[in-house]
């Protein structure tokens, strides 16, 4: 078939025309693409560059090292120790099940840990490290490290964790740290980002919690380049954080340990205070518990054991527990009366065994009475009637005001949890709280530290120190922060008549050193170290008239929780007071029997800065004391069982 050349010409012209038309359209499109490219890459380049940077750069926090805690001599109380853990990276491990079973042949893996790790693995991307075992021993970690080639994806890692080497000795003072909980976060207004790091530890109780602000330190940050799946490719730069401040406490670890050991399983509290500076040399509550359990995460059974123990090991009895001060309050009543000029130290009051107020009789603890007593004899023998009489003359409001001057019913700010105010009642207070008028009987009760009157062992120690010095001594727990001494609040004079104070101290000296004193059996005989003190026995029940008629049941015959609290406050040496001590033994019976011996032992330990020589003790006690010293030394660093059933 041959074609008409004219036809060929025509179709070719048409083709050329259309080809040029189409080529033009294509050129236009290419031009549009070029314009678009120019718009994005030149006009909007900065904006896109910024987006690209945001994509690739991530900021990661570097957790700060927590400040460590030391005693006044530099002995470590709360330290950071390396803790070894084993992490697994799913992506590198390949066959996770095989690797875990291989690992479990080397070291012991807890099934619940493995289960938790598996759950975590399912949720997170494969390159994220997941903790498989925590707090494993150095031996176990070496085993894993040696076998590393056979365990793909398994890495031993080292981190820092808190350890309290003195275990229960400082449990109440220092408290403990634990991982941040959702509850902790919910309480905070604007939580620091570092708190969101999994397993980051913060102070939960005690000093650790109260000084969290300086202990925690400031988190550092590093800028890392990440890829689209969030894997870190490299570190771009880092800004180091600031480690937490080291705290030095006023407490003497050796003395504190002795006090805890001396108290043993007794439910008691002891405070040893430096009369001069107010430094708390020991502040012990017993029974105690091992704070390390809480750092690790306490088991339900252990926690139940602690909460259900009637001796309340978790409570910090030194500042949190308040007790009727009992006869230890008598110095306050007397001081109020002396300062008001109601009575002279030598003036006597007749004690027939009771004081009749209106129709009601207020009994002295000694049924037969003490006869004529002055300040010294009344305190020495702890006559109640003398103080009823004084109190009725002075009135409750002045007594309470005097108590406040001595630090009772006043809050002493210490970095510890739940510091109690105690209570010094006034007429207004009763009207406000109970809506009832103040009764004369209330005054009588208050005069011997019963009734509404409440004080913590710390407050009683402060009171003793203030009696000993006549100055407004205030307690101090933190001696220095990062090596910088915290300022001493050197309290001014209490503004009391020095003669009255001297008389009062002399009376307290008689309590401990006079043959008829209630604490005579717990005296110190070393010259120059003699002690002045006051016993107290505070009732936790009312003695009914029927009971009184039938004869008061002795403490030994009562169930433990109904026995009296035993108290003792003292200071020594008498001539130049150095330490003030308060002892409260819950339901311990009489103060002279249960509390005073503890106070003496603790005082001597503090005064001699170690085990005192037997010559400091009265001859008759020495063999018993020697046995006790040997026992305590044997069981140095006692293992504290916390199940609470063993009540020695």
């Amino acid at each position, binding site marked *: *078939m*041959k*074609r008409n*050349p004219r*036809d*060929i010409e*025509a*179709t*070719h012209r*048409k*083709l*050329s025309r*259309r*080809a*040029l038309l*189409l*080529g033009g359209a*294509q*050129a236009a*499109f*290419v031009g549009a*693409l*070029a314009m*678009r*490219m*120019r718009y*994005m*890459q*030149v006009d*909007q*380049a900065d*904006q*896109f*560059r910024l*987006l*690209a*940077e945001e*994509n*690739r750069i991530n900021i990661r926090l570097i957790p700060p090292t927590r400040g460590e805690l030391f005693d006044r001599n530099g002995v470590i109380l709360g330290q950071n120790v390396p803790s070894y853990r084993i992490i697994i990276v799913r992506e590198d491990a390949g066959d996770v099940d095989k690797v875990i079973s291989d690992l479990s042949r080397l070291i012991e893996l807890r099934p619940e840990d493995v289960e938790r790790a598996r759950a975590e693995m399912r949720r997170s991307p494969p390159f994220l490290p997941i903790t498989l075992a925590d707090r494993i021993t150095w031996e176990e970690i070496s085993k894993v490290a040696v076998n590393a080639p056979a365990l793909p994806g398994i890495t031993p890692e080292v981190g820092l964790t808190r350890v309290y080497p003195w275990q229960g000795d400082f449990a109440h003072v220092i408290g403990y740290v634990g991982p941040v909980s959702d509850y902790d976060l919910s309480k905070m207004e604007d939580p620091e980002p570092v708190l969101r790091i999994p397993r980051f530890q913060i102070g939960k109780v005690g000093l650790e919690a109260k000084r969290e602000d300086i202990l925690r330190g400031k988190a550092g940050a590093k800028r890392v*380049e*990440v*890829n*689209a*799946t969030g894997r870190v*490719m490299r570190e771009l730069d880092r800004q180091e954080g600031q480690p937490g401040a080291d705290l030095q406490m006023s407490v003497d670890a050796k003395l504190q340990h002795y006090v805890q050991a001396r108290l043993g399983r007794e439910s008691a509290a002891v405070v040893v205070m430096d009369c001069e500076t107010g430094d708390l040399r020991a502040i012990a509550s017993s029974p105690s518990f091992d704070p390390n359990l809480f750092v690790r995460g306490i088991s339900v059974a252990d926690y139940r054991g602690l909460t259900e123990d009637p001796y309340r090991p978790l409570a910090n009895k030194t500042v949190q527990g308040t007790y009727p001060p009992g006869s230890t309050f008598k110095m306050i009543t007397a001081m109020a009366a002396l300062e008001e000029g109601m009575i002279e130290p030598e003036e006597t009051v007749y004690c027939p065994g009771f004081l009749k107020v209106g129709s009601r009789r207020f009994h002295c603890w000694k049924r037969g009475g003490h006869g004529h007593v002055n300040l010294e004899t009344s305190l020495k023998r702890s006559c109640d009637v003398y103080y009823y009489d004084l109190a009725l003359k002075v009135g409750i409001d002045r007594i309470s005001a005097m108590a406040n001057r001595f630090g009772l019913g006043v809050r002493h700010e210490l970095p510890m949890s739940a510091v109690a105010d105690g209570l010094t009642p006034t007429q207004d207070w009763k009207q406000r709280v109970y809506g009832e008028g103040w009764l004369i009987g209330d005054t009588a009760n208050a005069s011997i530290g019963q009734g509404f009157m409440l004080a913590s062992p710390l407050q009683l120690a402060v009171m003793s120190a203030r009696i000993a010095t006549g100055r407004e001594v205030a307690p101090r727990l933190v001696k220095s922060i990062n090596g910088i001494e915290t300022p001493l609040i050197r309290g001014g004079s209490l503004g009391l008549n020095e003669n009255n104070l001297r008389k009062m101290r002399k009376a307290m000296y008689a309590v401990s050193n006079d043959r008829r004193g209630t604490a005579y059996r717990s005296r110190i005989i070393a010259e120059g170290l003699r002690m002045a003190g006051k016993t107290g026995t505070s009732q936790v029940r009312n003695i009914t008239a029927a009971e009184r008629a039938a004869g008061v049941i002795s403490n030994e015959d009562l169930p433990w929780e109904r026995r009296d609290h035993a108290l003792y406050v003292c200071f020594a040496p008498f001539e130049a007071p150095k330490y003030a001590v308060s002892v409260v033994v819950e339901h311990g019976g009489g103060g002279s029997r249960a509390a005073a011996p503890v106070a003496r032992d603790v005082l001597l330990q503090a005064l001699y800065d170690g085990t005192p020589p037997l010559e400091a003790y009265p001859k008759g006690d020495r063999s018993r004391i020697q046995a006790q010293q040997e026992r305590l030394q044997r069981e140095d660093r006692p293992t504290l069982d916390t199940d609470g059933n063993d009540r020695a």
Partner: protein
Amino acid sequence: MSYLEYNVKSTPTGLRKILYMNWPLTLLLASVAGVGFLMLYSVAGGSYSPWAEPQMKRFALGLAVMTAVALVPIWFWRNMAVVAYCISILLLLAVELFGTVGMGAQRWIDLGFMRLQPSELMKITMVMLLAAYYDWLPGQKTSRPIWVLIPVMMILLPTFMVLKQPDLGTAILLLAAGGGLMFLAGVHWAYFAAVIASGVGVIVAVFKSRGTDWQMLKDYQYRRIDTFLDPSTDPLGAGYHITQSKIALGSGGWSGRGFMQGTQSRLNFLPEKHTDFIFTTLAEEFGFIGGFSLLLLYSLILLFCIATALATRDRFSSLVTLGIGINFFLFFAVNMSMVMGLAPVVGVPLPMVSYGGSAMLVLMAAFGIVHSAHIHRPRHRV
């Protein structure tokens, strides 16, 4: 026209033909492929494996195929057009029947050394058939309805087969290339006007129907359209790729971040960075200068195709060369529009640059036909 009408004696013979190939075009193709090697080397993090090296081998193979095709006289290819088209259709059918065994939709046939995508082949053989058809059809019949319907069927058959795979991108490319060829052949513009008008009408209807009782698309299909129109509505889902692609492109700036310094591609923010989105890596690392240079290279290749077509008096040669040019244009225009956020994400590779065997080989073979048309062009008036 039969090949007897050509002045066969004046065309080069034997291996001398190689001297008469369109060497500037070959050089352009080689430089575009070179850009591809560079980028594949870069996205692999500075390594010849796994992409740059196989790509180089394929390009070498492609050169051989192109030369072989070029040496065969153009009239042979015209006569083979029907056969080639039928083979392509059969291959598409084979993929449809046997290819579904793998994961989901399989679009390729394993030839051992490479995977052949029949839809890629289809783009060229369809152009060949249409060119042969219009070469055979007398000029005055071109716009008669019955003679228009036949090529429309030739286009729609493979389009539907590809659409069923489902491969929307290739289907659109087939449709556009076929339409382009019919336009070049001289079909009356009124047909195109009618098709475009009804197309616009359908689009308007689709959007207007949204939310009404006679809604024409499924809800998820509308959402996809939304995502395309505004990727920021779904930054981590379907819009993620296009957003990251735009960030990579834009952050390149005027001169780029430097070879192998593109954070977006190196840190895997870019999807499919070695295939469909390879242009973003180029634009990120070499900036506007790099991107524009590649665009320029493509335009020059296109220009050479058009020039070759206009220089020959043989109607089949002109049409097939222009058709291949249209295909090539559609490849890079759609791919670039896609990565710049001007078109929805459809799987269209960047020609000669993206990693992929069959697309490149088929394209090289097609350029072989362009060469053949150039070598065997009629030297004298009949």
